[in-house]
Structures are given as C-alpha cells and as structure tokens.
C-alpha cells in the first residue's frame, strides 16, 4: 500500500496519506484479531 499510487505529489501529504492508511488498516486488524482473542480467552475449557 504505497502512496506512490496517489495523484498527490507533495511529499508530506503523501506521507500522511500512507501513514493514515496503514494506521487505519492496523485498527481493522486489531479489531479482527482482538475479537477472536477475546473469545479464545472467554471459552470455558
């Protein structure tokens, strides 16, 4: 997911776009794995 693809050429904006996208993707992955982890620890086995 490199910011190379954007139509924006300003370096700082490109960096913000890339970091923003990566940050949000991490949030999404955290929710995914977090809920699975929650259930792993909540099961009574």
């Amino acid at each position, binding site marked *: 997911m490199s910011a190379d*693809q*954007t139509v924006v050429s300003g370096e700082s904006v490109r960096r913000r776009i890339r970091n923003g*996208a990566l940050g949000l993707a991490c949030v999404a992955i955290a*929710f995914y794995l977090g809920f*699975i982890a929650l259930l792993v620890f909540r099961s009574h086995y």
Partner: protein
Amino acid sequence: MANAHSSDTAHHDDHHDEPAKGIKRWLFATNHKDIGTMYLVFSLIMFFIGGAMAMVIRAELFQPGLQLVDPVFFNQMTTNHALIMIFGAVMPAFVGLANWMIPLQIGAPDMALPRMNNFSFWILPFAFTLLLSTLFVPGGMAAGGWTLYPPLSLQTGDSFPMLIFAIHMMGISSIMGAINVIVTIMNMRAPGMNLLKMPLFTWSWLITAYLLIAVMPVLAGAVTMLLTDHFFKTSFFNAAGGGDPVMFEHIFWFFGHPEVYIMILPAFGIISEILPTFSRKPLFGATSMIYAIASIAFLSFIVWGHHMFADGMPVAAQLFYMMSTMLIAVPTGVKVFNWTATMWRGSLSFEPPMLFAIAFLFLFSIGGFSGLMLAIVPADFQYNQTYFVVAHFHYVLVPGAIFGIMAGVYYWLPKWTGHMYSMGLAKTHFWLSAIFVNVLFFPQHFLGLAGMPRRIPDYAVQFTDWNMVSSIGGFAFGLSQILFAVVIIQCARGGKKATAVVWEGTHPTGLEWTLPSPAPYHSFTTAPEVR
C-alpha cells in the same frame, strides 16, 4: 487540519487526459468517476437479483400452504435476498456515490489511493459470483438467515466455506473503501475547505467510514470462528466444547447494529443536500446535523443487545439496551426537526430528488417509530421474530436507505452524464415506488402484531388477506423499478444538456456545482480556492 497546497495537487503527470479504450478502461480503472460508475452499475444489478429473490418470497407467501417452492429453497431465498441487498446493493451504491461525489465536493483531483480503489471494487464481482454460485452446489445456498446464527448456520452444506469466503471478501472491500474515504477527506480537501464547511454528504461518509473500519473486522472475526468451528474442531460457539452460541449473537450484533447505521448515515447526508436545494434555503442547523450524525454513530455501538432481548439477559442489561436505544431518538429527532425546518417557508419545488427526499422523511420516520416500539423490552417479547420486525427494517431500509440512494442518483445524474433525464418518467417511478412500498410493507405491521412469524414459507389462514395485499404491493414495487433503470439508461445516452448548477435552487455547499456538466474526466487537477 492543514490543506494540500494547490501546487501539490496540481500535477499528476502519470495520468492521461482521456480515458483508456475498451475493457482496459474498466479493468485497470483508477479514475474515481469510472470506479464510482462501476460500483453504481454493480449495485443496480445486485438490486435486481436480490429483487428477483424477493419476488420468489412474495409469490410463495401470496397464499397459505406450500405453493411454488420447497421450504428449504424458500429459506435460501430469504437468507440470500438479505445478504445481496445489504452487501451487494445498498453498501456498494453508497460507495459508488462516495467515489463520484467526495472528490468533487471537496475539490480533490481523485481519491487518495486510486489503485486500492480499483482493488476494492474488483473484489466485489468475485465475491458475489461466489455467493451466487452456491445455488448450484450440493445442499444449495445458505438457508440459516443472514444473521448466520450457529448452530443452524453450521448445518449449511457444501456452500458453507464459499459463503464465509465471500463474506470475507466483502469485508476486505468495504474496509479498503473506508480507509480510502478517510484518508481522502483528511488530506485532499481544497485550500479553505475546512471541516465545518464540508458538505453534509461527505461528512456523513467520513463518519460512516469509521463505523466500517470498526465493525467489518468484527463480522470477519465472527465468520472466521464459524469456519473454524465447522472445519477445525474449535468450539467458539459450541456449548458442548466450552463455547457459547449466544456469544455469536453478541459479536454479530456488535457488528450488525452499526451496520444498519452504515446503511442509513450516507442517506442522511444525501437528504441534507437535497432538501436545501429544492427549498432554496440553507440547511437549518448544519453544524448540529454533524453532531447528530456523530452521536448516532457513537450510540450505535452500545445498543446491540436490543436484538437479543428474547435470549434472556439480566434485567439491568435489558434496561441498559432499552434506554441507550431510545437515546438514539434524540439526535434522530434533531435531524428530522432540522430537515423540516429547512423546508419551512422555503420556496419548494418537487423535482424527482425532492420527491424521494420528502418520502424518505415521512417513511423513514415510520420505521424509526416501529424501532422505538421494538426497543421496549416487554413489547419486543411479543414482536420479536414476527413480521413486525420485518416491517420495521424494511421501512428504514427501502423508503429509507434505498430512497436515499435513488434521491442521490436523481440529484447527481445530470452532473455525471451531462444530460437531464425524463422528469415525467422519473416522477412516475417515484409515485409508483412510494405508493407500492407502503402496500408492500405496511400490512406486515398488522401481520406481525397478529403473530405471523418471520422466515416461514407457510402460515395460518387468518393471515391470508394481508399477505395477498403485501405480495401484490411487492410485485408492483418490483416492476416499477424497471423504470429506474430506463431513466438512467436514457439519461446516459442523451437528453437535454444540463447546466453546471443543474438545479435552479442549488445551494453551493459542495464544489461539484462549480464544475461543468458532465464533470470532466479529470477535475480539480488544480485545487480550487474556497472562501
């Protein structure tokens, strides 16, 4: 937040000025307008496929007894009708509108991540081909309801892993789309387009995108656990193995309730654009509209238990979910009040977008009220799993979300194609839709209150009359939608030239109206200044 400098957004040397020829234009599309168009066309196709399934359902329910299809197939239809309408029709339609309109409204040359945008779209045809192909595998399509509750959903035949994979793909597509929306809005606004000046449609999408990022992964997690329970001997939702099937419902509805707001918030945004235009007045309380959307989005995370009252839960939990659900009526009331106040003493005219917006206002409110009834715990014990619930969610989704989409399409279509469409045909489409949607869904309130259960192919004879009425409404509503496609196709092919502002009363909050119609293939390559 600081804006992009105009010199930064101005160049994009690696892009051609003209669209590529033939299939490559679409396959390798990175232009937000092309991708928006593909989303919208895809959504319309899914709307008709999902609609065909609804016709099967209403045909079977025309009379009591088993008439046309066998019960398992009937359940396959209810399950897949819902999945296709939610993930294939409503959500992609809003993403298509976002693609087209967000860059145009904020003065950006494109979405921030155009290649990811291409990928977000092209996942969908694969996901839905996979989902629809389950019709032909042994055991048929999933039939346990769109809510996928185990253990029932685990009894799905060979189509089970296909269903789960399709849902994962839809989730990935939505998450990438949402990321794109957020980084675009946060980084690509034209100088001077500060957040409080931003048009309401773009605002509603910013908030919706956060909801998507928070809850689509939760759905993905839930279905992943279904998959491992089915194939890898885990027991997340299996009580015999130490798991808990009710836990699935908690997770599903932690996704599911925000999901219903994902399907209505962008419609709120569209309505907030249309009412001022055709009232020739600025939106009443524009800032409070933004706060109202944000509060609704926040509250949508703490109300999921209202889908589970009848499961049994501590009284304190019942009270919490009941009260928090009713709290949503406050910001929703603010919005309905502001919309009404926008029209108050306005110089109203009734072009098709306005007609759909006004119908939205009345009919969405009916769905809101039946929602409030369902939120009352003792009442829900009666209504739960009946046609009353079906009536509720169809009122918020059809004359709510879908009328919102249609209003938006009729509002911006001339901006996209450069042509005005046939007002006569569009108004006919409106009146047929507005009348028959009520013939279709209003009787379902009576059926539900009288005790007719949902998701059944047969019913007791006393329910016959209202079911016949509902089915007739359904066939008529379904047929009327052909007009929608006709209007769009005609408009794409030609018609009276549209002006830049398109509508006489256009109140220029969004920058789309500063562009000619049709909007040029590359727009705002030099960022405009917003005062």
